[in-house]
């Protein structure tokens, strides 16, 4: 029998990239919050530059994820297998502790990609099996929240469009911003400059990529030291703006947030009216029930969907908020591809720096170019970036070079410090055939079913990736590369960029939450994180899901009485 704790205004499941940011506006508004986190607090000493520990043994996943790794299959004709292809972590701050900290706003086109594509290219431009819809919000709706997040976590960059005024040194394809980035961009390097010069010669518009890493001292934290080993790893200099060093300490300072670490949530509980009453969790072998007026589910896409599907009750026999059958649907594994290139005779010194220290190119992203006759909508951005790893480099030789022996060694000796790297990140659509559900055959060590990913590679995604790959090859060659390899699309398995599963929308028949993250079927259940996003833009998702989380938190505050069915926050704050 669970030990029943004192009721609180809000309980959060997870304190990662989404809830870890949302707790700041909530706590400042006076809400009493219990933040449940399956991991603990980490410190700079936890982040050594050790590739075996971080990248190969995935120390970051030991706190929880390594036992919960979902299974994956490309389609429902095959048996799902367990193959860890991404690292996620449970800790205060979550996976934003070890992410690469590229911090992008998505193009305005992303939010209206269905209607915009139909208007420009006709109804057949959307694949018949895609469940793509427009978002229930626009870029303009989200802009103030992008702004708040960039200020709160600290983002470095160079604006290309401030209220319509363009700066060609920044990203002119970006949606209009109301002000400059909080900090100048991370330092350019010899390699990023080499790429930028080549992009300009091609008539493209290179710019320094945006990063949630301090480029200068700010907010009590020092700047990036460019020492590398940043991903998957935390920053020993606290330069990365993860919520555990930015928003969460500020929320704690209000005295309205209590963090409970090592708390693993097993169920979200409901009453007969279908309202969430709180959550059950296990900590130190003991089971607790934490009652709350509002439950915030923010445990990363995979665990959030899994918890809903596991939280079955008489009112919700298929899982919580799932009488519509929509939980797990519209899942998107982000299509991203890595490329490498040899620049003979040049020492690139890419063992230094950090991945978001990069030259970005957005010319081939979103609808920034004419797609007539191409057979796909959307595009992808490319970032040619710093930060290489010794073991990773040794495993990444180009086709035609032997994998071992004297020729392999000779290649490494001549070229290991001359290998350039880049990443293409593509718009990715939802499809009927791509979904998350509970695996009937595989369980975690506690006997609980694992989540199963069903996600393949669709024709539009293959064409889009190939189009962007050819552009990236062109860029590398222009910059002086002798050989370029990689970049081919494959079906996304377990990924850190996992979108959908509880998507937002105005129609309860085709979505799980409304435009403010509240479950259609459970009015006091707020879902935050990548699972509520509708489509995947052509860059990293974190800043967008953080902006959506902040917007949803503000909506909750402004409508507290009707959503929570409890007294106003101001009164609660005074009473507390």
């Amino acid at each position: 029998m669970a030990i029943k704790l004192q009721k609180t205004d809000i309980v959060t499941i997870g304190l990662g990239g989404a809830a870890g940011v949302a707790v700041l506006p909530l706590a400042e508004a006076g809400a009493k919050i219990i933040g449940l986190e399956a991991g603990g607090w980490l410190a700079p000493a936890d982040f050594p530059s050790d590739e075996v520990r971080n990248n190969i043994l995935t120390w970051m996943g030991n706190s929880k994820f390594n036992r919960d790794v979902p299974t994956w299959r490309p389609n429902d004709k095959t048996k799902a297998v367990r193959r860890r292809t991404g690292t996620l972590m449970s800790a205060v701050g979550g996976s934003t502790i070890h992410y690469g900290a590229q911090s992008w706003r998505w193009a305005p086109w992303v939010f209206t990609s269905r209607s915009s594509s139909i208007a420009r290219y006709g109804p057949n431009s959307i694949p018949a099996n895609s469940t793509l819809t427009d978002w229930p919000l626009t870029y303009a709706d989200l802009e103030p929240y992008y702004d708040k997040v960039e200020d709160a976590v600290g983002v470095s960059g160079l604006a290309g469009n401030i209220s319509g005024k363009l700066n060609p040194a920044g990203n002119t394809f970006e949606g209009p911003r109301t002000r400059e980035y909080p900090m100048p961009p991370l330092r350019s390097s010899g390699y990023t400059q080499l790429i930028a010069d080549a992009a300009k010669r091609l008539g493209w518009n290179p710019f320094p990529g945006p990063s949630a890493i301090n480029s200068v001292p700010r907010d009590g934290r020092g700047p990036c030291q460019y020492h590398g080993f940043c991903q998957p790893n935390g920053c020993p200099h606290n330069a990365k703006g993860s919520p555990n060093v930015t928003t969460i300490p500020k929320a704690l300072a209000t005295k309205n947030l209590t963090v409970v670490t090592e708390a693993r949530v097993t169920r979200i509980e409901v009453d007969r009216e279908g309202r969430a009453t709180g959550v059950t969790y296990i900590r130190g072998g003991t089971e607790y029930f934490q009652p709350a007026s509002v439950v915030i589910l923010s445990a990363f896409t995979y665990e959030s969907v899994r918890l809903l599907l596991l939280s079955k009750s008489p009112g919700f026999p298929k899982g919580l908020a799932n009488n519509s059958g929509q939980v797990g649907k519209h899942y998107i594994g982000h299509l991203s591809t890595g490329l490498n290139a040899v620049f003979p005779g040049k020492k690139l010194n890419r063992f230094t720096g950090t991945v978001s220290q990069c030259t970005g190119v957005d010319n081939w992203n979103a609808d920034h170019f004419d797609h007539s006759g191409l057979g796909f909508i959307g595009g992808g951005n490319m970032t040619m970036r710093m930060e290489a790893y010794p073991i990773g480099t040794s495993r990444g030789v180009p086709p035609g070079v032997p994998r071992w022996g004297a020729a392999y060694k000779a290649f490494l000796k001549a070229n290991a410090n001359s290998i350039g790297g880049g990443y293409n990140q593509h718009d990715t659509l939802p499809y009927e055939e791509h979904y998350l559900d509970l695996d009937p055959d595989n369980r975690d060590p506690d006997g609980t079913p694992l989540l199963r990913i069903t996600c393949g590679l669709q024709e539009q995604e293959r064409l889009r990736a190939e189009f962007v790959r050819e552009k990236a090859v062109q860029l590398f060659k222009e910059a002086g590369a002798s050989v370029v390899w990689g970049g081919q699309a494959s079906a996304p398995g377990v990924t850190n960029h996992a979108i959908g599963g509880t998507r937002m929308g105005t129609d309860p028949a085709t979505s799980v939450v409304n435009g403010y993250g509240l479950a259609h079927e459970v009015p006091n259940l707020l879902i935050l994180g990548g699972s509520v996003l509708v489509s995947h833009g052509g860059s990293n998702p974190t800043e967008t899901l953080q902006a959506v989380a902040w917007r949803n938190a503000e909506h909750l505050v402004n409508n507290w009485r009707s959503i929570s069915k409890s007294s106003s926050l101001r009164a609660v704050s005074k009473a507390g």
Partner: protein
Amino acid sequence: MKKPDQSQERGFSRRDLFKRASVIGIAAAGSAALIPPLASEAAAPQIQQLHAVETLTAQQFGTLSAITGRIIPTDESGPGAIEAHAANYIDKALNSHYSYQKDNYTANLAAMDAYSKATHGANFVELPPEKQDAVLTAMESNTVGKSFGFAPDARTFFNLVLEHTQEGMFSDPYYGGNANFIGWDLLDFPGVKLEFTEQEQQLNFPIVKAHRSAYSYNMFKERKQ
């Protein structure tokens, strides 16, 4: 219900990691600008790194060592996996983070000798380099027969040893390989530092080799409680 300790389960505990870091020799050089070296760090003695075979038998270790020596050979371009003690990395790992693969190694190393004897008339370690390469090539292409005891097959074991040899060559020397930073020097990787300057990030800038393990920095050594 008790939450299992994942690090223990994987045989890779933080405590072990820090404990062992202190006994492995470190050629301390250079300094970290952000975190000034303490007196003890600046004066770190140049201890000769010692190697013991912890897990495998001498026979097994000899075979493994010879494999790594063919994957990254010693030649006119410089020292290879033998001098870097890549096999010691694997041997130690089979007693720690790869302990679950120990039986896999012992079975497949025996299969390699069985195949080498049947095909070339001697154990793997006794074959000349070109015959050793022929055995490894046959394993890589999975053209060895099924009767020698490879499990699940020769190619899978070859790929595993290749990966582990790369780890032994290019990982932090804390783990027992990459002796004298031979692997990092081969790649022109300067060693772990806590900062790189703007100048060091320019093209063709010759970064001075730090030749340091992550665990040579005080901030990553075991914290005083």
